[in-house]
């Protein structure tokens, strides 16, 4: 009898022991999962969207032409989303990116046609210079934003709301509200180039994403940007030059917007002041969907890229099953709100349960 009892208690304790071990292993796996929570979730969503439309219309959706179209439409939106994500990392926002991108496109198109009017060959050979001037316009636009935010001290949302109107106004006046035609052949052939089945435009996005990821994660500037967003007071007291950090953030965001503007003219040899007016809100949706915290401090490049792809897949899929762009607008809004609600509910639960474990360990390894 007694033997049996001890036996039982022994087995019970070993069961408890192994249970505990399994528990801790699972907890470890879960916490590791949470570390990449935004990215993993986005990956699941991307695959889900892909699977759904593949299942519904495999022939049309998996057609290489359709996939290429997705890869051609995504880069400009992806670049703008990366730009806004970068400013959100510091707790700000940049509403002027689409206006900057259009200004870059208009600069390139009108410089090219102006030089081409006197000497077509010269305009073509000067194409790299023209493109650089366009990029510089983006950087200057970003610098203006940076000055307003860091030196004057205007809240980013208001500063960039104002500059959005200013840049857009300049673009409207410049073009007289008309669409400009003409772009260097160098750009338009680049826009049509396909390397190993992948459009060159998409490779631009990939390259920009890699560079940005390195800047954010591996450089001192990246660390100060993230700290600035996570805790501006701590950033200041740890001796970080807040104004410099902010200025460089907005210059980078302007450069990314300028790059997007170059893609505008590469895709289509036209430029106008009101191109992509719905992009401002779209890229905010993408950035937030990709796990960027609009209050600053957190966001990943990979998450934003995956969110861009997801929305492009949904947009293209909706097209194929003959749903209008307005159905797509509904889907965009619904996805955004559902993700935010799920995030809020689960993060609330996590916040309530996690402290017990972390209190016991008392060593915060990641923030």
């Amino acid at each position: 009898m007694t033997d049996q009892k001890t036996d039982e208690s022994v087995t019970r304790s070993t069961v408890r022991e192994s249970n505990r071990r399994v528990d801790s292993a699972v907890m470890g796996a879960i916490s590791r999962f949470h570390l990449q929570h935004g990215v993993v979730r986005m990956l699941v969503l991307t695959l889900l969207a892909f699977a759904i439309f593949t299942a519904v219309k495999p022939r049309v959706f998996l057609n290489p032409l359709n996939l290429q179209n997705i890869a051609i439409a995504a880069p400009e939106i992806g670049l703008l989303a990366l730009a806004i994500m970068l400013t959100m990392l510091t707790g700000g926002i940049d509403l002027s990116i689409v206006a900057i991108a259009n200004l870059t496109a208009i600069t390139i198109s009108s410089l090219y046609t102006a030089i081409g009017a006197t000497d077509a060959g010269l305009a073509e050979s000067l194409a790299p210079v023209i493109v650089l001037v366009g990029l510089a316009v983006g950087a200057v636009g970003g610098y203006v934003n940076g000055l307003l935010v860091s030196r004057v001290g205007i809240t980013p949302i208001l500063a960039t709301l104002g500059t959005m109107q200013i840049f857009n106004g300049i673009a409207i006046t410049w073009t007289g509200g008309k669409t400009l035609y003409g772009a260097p052949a160098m750009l338009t052939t680049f826009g049509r180039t396909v390397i190993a089945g992948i459009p060159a435009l998409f490779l631009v996005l990939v390259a920009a994403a890699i560079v940005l990821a390195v800047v954010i994660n591996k450089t001192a500037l990246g660390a100060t940007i993230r700290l600035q967003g996570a805790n501006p007071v701590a950033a200041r007291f740890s001796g970080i030059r807040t104004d410099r950090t902010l200025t460089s953030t907005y210059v980078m965001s302007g450069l990314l917007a300028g790059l997007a503007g170059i893609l505008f003219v590469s895709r289509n040899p036209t430029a106008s002041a009101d191109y992509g007016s719905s992009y401002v809100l779209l890229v905010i949706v993408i950035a937030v969907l990709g796990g960027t915290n609009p209050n600053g401090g957190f966001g990943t490049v990979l998450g934003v890229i995956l969110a861009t792809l997801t929305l492009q897949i949904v947009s293209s899929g909706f097209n194929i099953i003959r749903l209008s762009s307005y159905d797509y607008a509904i889907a965009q809004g619904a996805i955004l709100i559902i993700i935010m609600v799920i995030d809020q509910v689960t993060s609330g639960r996590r916040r309530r349960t996690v402290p017990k474990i972390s209190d016991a360990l008392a060593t915060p390894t990641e923030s």
Partner: protein
Amino acid sequence: MSATGTSRLAALRGSNNEGVLALILVVLVIAMTIVNSDFLSAGTLFAILRSSIVPTVLALGVLIVIISGGIDVSFPAIAIFSAYTTVVLMRGSGIDAGVVLVLVVSLVIGALLGLVNGGLIARFKLPTLIVTLGTQGIFKGILIAYVGSRYIAELPLGMRMFSTQSLLTVPAGGENTSLHVLVVPAIVLCLLVNFLLRNTMFGRGVYAIGNDTEAARRVGFSVMRIQVILYVVAGVLAAFGGVLHVTLTRSANPQDLLGTELDTIAAVVLGGASIFGGRGSVLGTMLGVLLIQVINNSLILMGIPSAWQRTAVGLLLVIGVGVQAISARRSSRRVFAHREVVAPA
């Protein structure tokens, strides 16, 4: 300067720089009159007032949301959704509805859409910009994909009868210019919202949660209830603005108003409301809207291409907010050498 002198000056300036705005308006009007003697006329005045009707009503809803510390970008979608759906419903049911029915139906729709915003924001404590960005897409999408995408010129009686009504007519140089009757509801709404914000517990609550949500909660305000109600009120005001817009343009076009959200927010912020919440007034907002309309009008009269309007409004916004930010910084530096205050006071 004596103490009473400074306080009188401060009173003139207004708690949200209303006095400064009024001064800018007056200076602008005088300058315009010197440049172009046609400017100071009943015709110009009436035109500016008429073009301010819809922006003012829409701005009132935005003002309430901004005072509470939020940002609403869904109000143009709510406005046109409510007005257009009402027109479609009236045509579908074959009722040539009068004013009361038109208003009731559209305001109820506006209230319901506002309830969606308020419910999501209050229940899940989500960022207001993100939620209204999402609902804006949903409202716009449902309206155009499912309610209708067609331009409708035949309006119900309740809208039709006011479309060309004038409040007063003044003879000016051979032909008559008249003031549109719909300035009356716009002014009444301004007075109502002013009363709501300044003289009711709800209004105090809106300012309180805009200043400090946690403090408001501890004092005993039901933050959730105030947030839900304020988004419903903002929805109702947007719907009213939508009805006025359809009445004034004498047609219902589901693409109208969309995309004007940032212009209206700019007007409210110019009117002295703080984007961080807790500050703002109806008078300031009215002046902000008027200032933008006067600038638009004077640019046209000065022969400057209307394309510069956006630039002018943008510059005005950056300068206005920039001056506030710099002065706030200076005064905060004087008080606490180390405090980080970027909020425009």
